[in-house]
């Protein structure tokens, strides 16, 4: 199960991070660090290109093909100063000098681009002086005491409901009441007029999402043309929190692929989201991928289905970076419409760190802040180009989304949050090192 990182395993060789930890290609044996001649860089580049061509022609077996083709834009990450010219003869000092490998390890300990993707930055304290502090206190009172009444007294007396009408929980509660009052009869009683039923349920779900958004005082700016309902298209977006789905759902009813959650969220998933046509997956099951892939394909081909929304990152990222996109959404042969979402951190940090807080805590945090402000851009639908493989297509779309939303790209697979990297990657490093030793051995 730990080898879950199958064909989607990212390069993991090049941490595209800003700190000076050495790029991972510095495992060549050799103590001398000279400026490499350009030909060495190109040699390696061409070797990789050669393998890719071979692989495309079916020349390599599938496992090595996967690890090769999973490395897009290698030359971007390869910097010249790390490729050293391989010295001719092997000395004891060369053999004993393991400093490049150790430096990589230490660099990873000190800072690595993967952990940075999931760091929630604590908000900067701005209230620590004599006049701002009382203002902040007032703000707390307003946010917690008026905007989010902690007491659910409306349950007790109806009159309080009116007074709470303009308060967030009140809004939310009212919304739920109206929603269920309309949804349950529609769902259970209107049989036979399926088309109408679906339409009404869709509208109700959209309304409920608007209520949710209103309950956090969401200020959402949508840019770009509204998504249309057509078959043969999927929508992909970057993922920061579960509320991404709610924000997008408010505008158009999407069907979405979600991880099944426990608790009340799971209950809502089962009852309501089924009506908009959601697909479930389970990260921890290895056979799950094929099953989900088939379901996705069927869904996109159905004419009446809601447009499908996929978050190809596979996990929540902190809205400063994007991790590698999984290629599942990009090998369906249909149009891919990218959606970029960027939250404004000044008001609240919408990143849901699922390891640190439950969804309920996260929602409560959102509801006790001032507002959730974000921008949503609907970008132009993309098609796979002739000669482009799904992974390259995914990278191209990730580029578009990252540029639009101002996010940095990082070559890691999001699933590494849950699983260890595949041992194949360590073996690749070992292989390179071994080959260089053997090569120099021949020259003694």
């Amino acid at each position, binding site marked *: 199960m730990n080898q879950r990182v199958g064909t989607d395993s990212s390069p*993991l060789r090049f*941490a595209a991070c*800003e*700190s*000076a*930890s050495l790029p*991972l290609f510095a*495992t060549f044996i050799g*103590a*001398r*660090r000279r400026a490499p001649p350009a030909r060495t860089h190109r040699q390696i580049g061409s070797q990789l290109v050669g393998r890719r061509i071979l692989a495309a022609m079916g020349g390599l077996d599938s496992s090595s093909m996967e690890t090769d083709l999973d490395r897009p834009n290698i030359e971007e990450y390869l910097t010249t100063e790390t490729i050293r010219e391989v010295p001719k003869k*092997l*000395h*004891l*000092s*060369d*053999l*004993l*000098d*393991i*400093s490049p*490998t*150790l*430096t*990589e*390890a*230490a*660099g*990873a*300990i*000190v*800072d*690595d*681009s*993967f*952990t940075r993707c999931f*760091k929630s930055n604590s908000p900067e304290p701005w209230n620590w002086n004599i006049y701002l502090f009382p203002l902040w206190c007032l703000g707390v009172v307003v946010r917690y005491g008026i905007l989010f009444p902690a007491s659910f007294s409306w349950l007790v007396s109806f009159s309080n409901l009116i007074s709470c009408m303009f308060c967030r929980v009140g809004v939310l509660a009212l919304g739920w009441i109206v929603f269920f009052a309309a949804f349950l009869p529609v769902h259970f009683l209107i049989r036979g007029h399926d088309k109408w039923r679906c339409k009404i349920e869709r509208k109700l779900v959209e309304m409920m999402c608007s209520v949710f958004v209103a309950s956090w005082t969401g200020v959402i700016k949508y840019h770009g043309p509204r998504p249309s309902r057509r078959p043969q298209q999927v929508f992909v977006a970057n993922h920061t929190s579960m509320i991404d789905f709610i924000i997008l759902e408010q505008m158009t009813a999407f069907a979405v692929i979600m991880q099944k959650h426990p608790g009340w969220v799971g209950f809502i998933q089962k009852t309501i989201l089924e009506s908009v046509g959601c697909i479930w997956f389970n990260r921890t099951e290895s056979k799950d991928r094929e099953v989900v892939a088939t379901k996705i394909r069927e869904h996109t081909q159905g004419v009446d289905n809601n447009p499908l929304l996929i978050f190809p990152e596979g996990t929540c990222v902190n809205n400063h970076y994007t991790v590698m996109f999984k290629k599942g959404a990009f090998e369906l042969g249909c149009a891919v419409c990218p959606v970029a979402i960027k939250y404004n951190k000044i008001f609240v940090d919408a990143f849901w760190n699922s*390891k640190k807080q439950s969804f309920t805590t996260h929602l409560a945090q959102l509801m006790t802040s001032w507002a959730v402000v974000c921008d949503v851009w609907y970008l132009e639908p993309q098609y796979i180009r002739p000669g482009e493989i799904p992974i390259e297509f995914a990278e191209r779309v990730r580029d578009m989304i990252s540029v639009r939303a101002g996010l940095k790209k990082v070559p*890691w697979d999001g699933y*590494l949050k849950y699983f*260890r*990297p595949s041992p194949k*990657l*360590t*073996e690749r*490093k*070992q*292989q390179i*090192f*071994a*080959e260089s*030793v*053997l090569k120099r*051995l021949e020259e*003694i």
Partner: protein
Amino acid sequence: MGNTSSMLTQYDIEEVQEHCNHAFSQQEIVSLYHRFCQLDRNSSGFITGDEFLSVPEFAVNPLSQRLLRMLDGLNFKEFVAFLSAFSPRISLQQKIEFLFKVYDFNSNGKVTFDDILSVLRDLTGSFISEQQRQEVITRVLEEAGYRRDSSLVLSDFMRILGSSQLKMEVEVPID
């Protein structure tokens, strides 16, 4: 410096700085502390092997297991001392001493043929046969004037690596 506090006092920083022989500036130590707390998820005061391995870049490193044994159970002060070998302010001699410690698995002050073989095995995996590995090491040892059964001490390492331009530096990001 308690396990649960997330604030470092000036006194703590100076103590850590003393311990690592001023390898890092005070700002770098604060940065390292944030990193330590970030990696130490359950706030136990030390980073477990699993927590280190959750950094994918570290997990794919061929020497990760060897380093984990050296890093196991270190508190923050010792963690900084461990990383001090990678500071640009540290002399070449001290870096070579660190390298020696990595090789000297059972910490008896001697690096034998088997120790070198073990490290080479970690680095090359299954891509060289055991026989070839032994051959490589024997050859380079003999060329440097040692026998296969001789064990190297720290001064030997200093002599062998002292004139090499060993570059073992890591930059601590200061945010």
